[in-house]
């Protein structure tokens, strides 16, 4: 388990402020954030490589705040792997096993190499290895001493998309097998969604939201988060109760959201100035209106059509520009192009107000 309470740290331009974080035993926690948010710094503080100016760090119920890195028993992996260039693969992996008798260490190295499928590489030097191979070796090196927790700094960011997906699957299955408490930081939310048991978001040195992945993803807590997570339609406007008001459970009510010429039916919890976020996938595009349960129907003109195979991204002007995403096939069958008139259908519940 990892617990950070009120951890702050400052290093040059980077600062972490009052970080609270709890990761349960065996949990795979992904911390999501843009570059410069302090992700690496946080990992280094947990590892003990950087000092915290205040707060406490606990690993497996042990207060490690004042312990040096070599006493914390953590596994660490940097984004660029940082394998030791002067050593062979075998010696790299065995690096943390210096306290073990030789025979045991060798056995452990073979074990971990088998696990990560890099046995044939064991006696090679570091030069000329591919990114994927280096990543596995770095992982093997971190895992060999059986660390209590695993800290991964953007482990997949330096790889080709193909390899990235493959390794993502392997990380997942590795975790299933070993169940090591893992803190993985990244800026790629797909990666986060695919791997995380729980998710956190870090922005400018602060943790802004934590929770189950789809919770966070579907209901971002802040404008920054919404933008960062790829919520493309973000509108600023005002919410007012419907007349007559219709109440929903939990104090939410039907309301009308206004932003400039746009008016949308939404479910809200309070009135006043708000943000409305709509995921592009949640906008249905049609040539004509069709009967549906959705309360919002908008007419508009296509401004641009962007092909991102197998999808198509449409920007439609309905008074304000909205971005919708549909399949390429649909786009073709609707014969969509700039200037064409379309109908947009959006469910009130799909519009996230915050």
């Amino acid at each position, binding site marked *: 388990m990892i617990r950070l309470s009120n951890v702050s740290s400052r290093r040059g331009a980077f600062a972490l402020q009052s970080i609270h974080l709890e990761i349960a035993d065996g949990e795979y926690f992904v911390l999501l954030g843009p570059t410069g948010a302090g992700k690496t710094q946080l990992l280094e503080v947990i590892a003990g490589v950087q000092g915290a100016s205040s707060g406490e760090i606990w690993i497996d119920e042990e207060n490690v705040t004042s312990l*040096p890195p070599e006493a914390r028993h953590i596994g660490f992996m940097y984004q660029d792997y940082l394998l030791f260039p002067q050593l062979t693969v075998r010696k790299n992996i065995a690096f943390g096993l*210096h306290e073990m008798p030789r025979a045991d260490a060798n056995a452990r190295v073979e074990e971990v190499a088998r696990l990560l499928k890099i046995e044939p590489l064991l006696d090679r030097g570091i030069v000329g290895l591919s990114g994927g191979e280096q990543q596995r070796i770095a992982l093997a090196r971190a895992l060999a001493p059986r660390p209590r927790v695993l800290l991964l700094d953007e482990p997949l960011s330096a790889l080709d998309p193909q390899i990235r997906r493959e390794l993502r699957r392997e990380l997942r299955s590795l975790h299933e097998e070993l169940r090591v408490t893992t803190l993985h930081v990244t800026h790629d939310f797909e990666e986060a969604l695919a791997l995380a048991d729980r998710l956190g978001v870090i922005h400018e040195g602060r943790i802004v939201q934590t929770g189950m992945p789809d919770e966070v993803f579907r209901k971002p807590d802040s404008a920054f988060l919404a933008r960062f997570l790829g919520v493309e339609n973000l509108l600023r406007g005002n919410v007012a109760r419907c007349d007559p008001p219709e109440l929903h459970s939990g104090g939410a009510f039907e309301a009308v959201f206004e932003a400039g010429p746009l008016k949308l039916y939404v479910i809200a919890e309070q009135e006043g100035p708000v943000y409305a976020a709509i995921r592009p996938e949640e906008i249905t595009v049609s040539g004509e209106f069709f009967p549906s349960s959705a309360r919002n129907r908008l007419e508009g003109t296509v401004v641009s059509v962007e092909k991102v195979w197998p999808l198509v991204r449409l920007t439609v002007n309905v008074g304000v520009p909205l971005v919708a995403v549909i399949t390429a096939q649909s786009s073709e069958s609707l014969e969509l192009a700039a200037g064409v008139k379309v109908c947009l259908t959006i469910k009130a519940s799909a519009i996230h107000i915050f």
Partner: protein
Amino acid sequence: MKKPSRLDLIFSLLGACLVLFLLAPLLKMLLGSPAGELHDALTDGEVRSAIALSLTCAFWATLIGTVFGVPLGYLLARRSLPGKHFIEALVDVPVVIPHPVAGIALLLVFGRHYFGGQFFSRFGLTFVGEVPGIVIAMLFVSSSFLINAARDGFRNVDPRLEYVARTLGYGPLGAFFSVAVPLSWRNLLSGAIMMWARAISEFGAILILTYNPKVASVLIYDRFSTYGLKYALPPALALVLLSLSVFALLRGISLQRGQGRAA
């Protein structure tokens, strides 16, 4: 075959000028000493002991410089010490001081009436007129080469590699020896070679502190001023040739290791 670019031509021309400039006096020296005289010089007991003394003292100076200078280089590369810029500038100062001035400065610290001299004499170590005086003169004028080389060598090692070593159970000293040193050994060796070379060539500072016993540079000067050029060239040449072979050997080691890497 690729046609040489204008850059190649101009740079080759400039480079050739400098190479000739360095080569010509050395060749002149070589040709100015008939083989017979060179042989005499090499068998002359006085010349041999002077060269041996130079080599020994330079070795000791380099050893001391390494033990104290490599850690300093590491701190300068890794830490932001208070007064770091001052220290870095200070390290470079001995290089610009006229050598006799350096000798006098050392005299004022390590002479028998001064703090350094009195402190060390308690351990039976005196400097003026003794071999340790030669060693400290050499150390003073040449240590900056080693310190700077060490610092630059360590700077080129990603500190995160040391962090990784820390997370894998090594303490700061362990990380230093298992990561920082192996990855910068070429710089360290190069720095040591430069320091050793500079130490052997030192003259003005040594002269003030210890004239007898004579190191090679002092003997050569002595021969020159007493007997003339003709008798100074052979021991000078002997020293140059000997130093050249040491360089070649050491640089050869550093290159060979690089190519023989299992990488």
